[in-house]
């Protein structure tokens, strides 16, 4: 399942829901939660605004989830990404994979967040104390 939303999410609630939908098929759930940092490139971040491409965003996330399910044996997957204005320490993104075995779940979770970062059409804009700036794409994986 994928969700793009302005509202916050609760990682614990999402994990419980995944576990509940599982009916004992999975032996492992691996998740990743991305948060807004208060410091980037040496500057204090007051606020972060997430822009996206409505329509394409949902397609890109669904495609990432589909590929993960084709590559690994997963019983459930979830990708949530927030958009709009966010503050330091706020949740930005949540990715989870449930599988019979932990290695499949770890790999699928890592694949989904790594691919999301390079393929899903989201852009971060930081508000610093004296200006705003668009975040540049990281070169490292």
């Amino acid at each position, binding site marked *: 399942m994928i969700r793009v939303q302005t509202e916050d999410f609760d990682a614990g609630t999402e994990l419980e829901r995944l576990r509940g939908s599982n009916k004992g098929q999975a032996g492992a759930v691996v998740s990743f939660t*991305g948060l807004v940092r208060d410091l980037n490139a040496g500057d204090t971040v007051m606020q972060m605004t*997430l*822009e*996206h*491409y409505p*329509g*394409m965003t949902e*397609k890109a996330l669904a495609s990432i989830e589909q590929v993960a399910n084709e590559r690994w044996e997963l019983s459930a997957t979830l990708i949530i*990404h927030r958009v709009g204005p966010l503050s330091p320490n706020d949740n*930005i*993104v949540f990715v989870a994979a449930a599988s019979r075995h932990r290695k499949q779940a770890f790999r699928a979770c890592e694949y989904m*967040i790594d691919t*999301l*970062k*390079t*393929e*899903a*059409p*989201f*852009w*971060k*804009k930081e508000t610093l104390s004296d200006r705003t700036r*668009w*975040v*540049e*794409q*990281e070169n490292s994986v």
Partner: protein
Amino acid sequence: MLQLRYFASLRELLGIGDEQVELPDGVHDLPGLTRWLQARDATWESALADGRLHIAINQEIVKADAAIRDGDEIAWFPPVTGG
């Protein structure tokens, strides 16, 4: 008619997020459309010359020389920074 969309820093640079234009005469691929847009003024010329820009047609990333058809939705945007 083409639906054109610009995102993030490019949207701010151009001062426009989306517009509809008639498919220009003689334009049948992205390089042709880009040249047509760049002819608008110096801002468009330099903004769309940025080789880092990604282009999507009908919400799928395409190569810079892709063909275009009447009715397409075409989007330009900088490298993505989500997650």
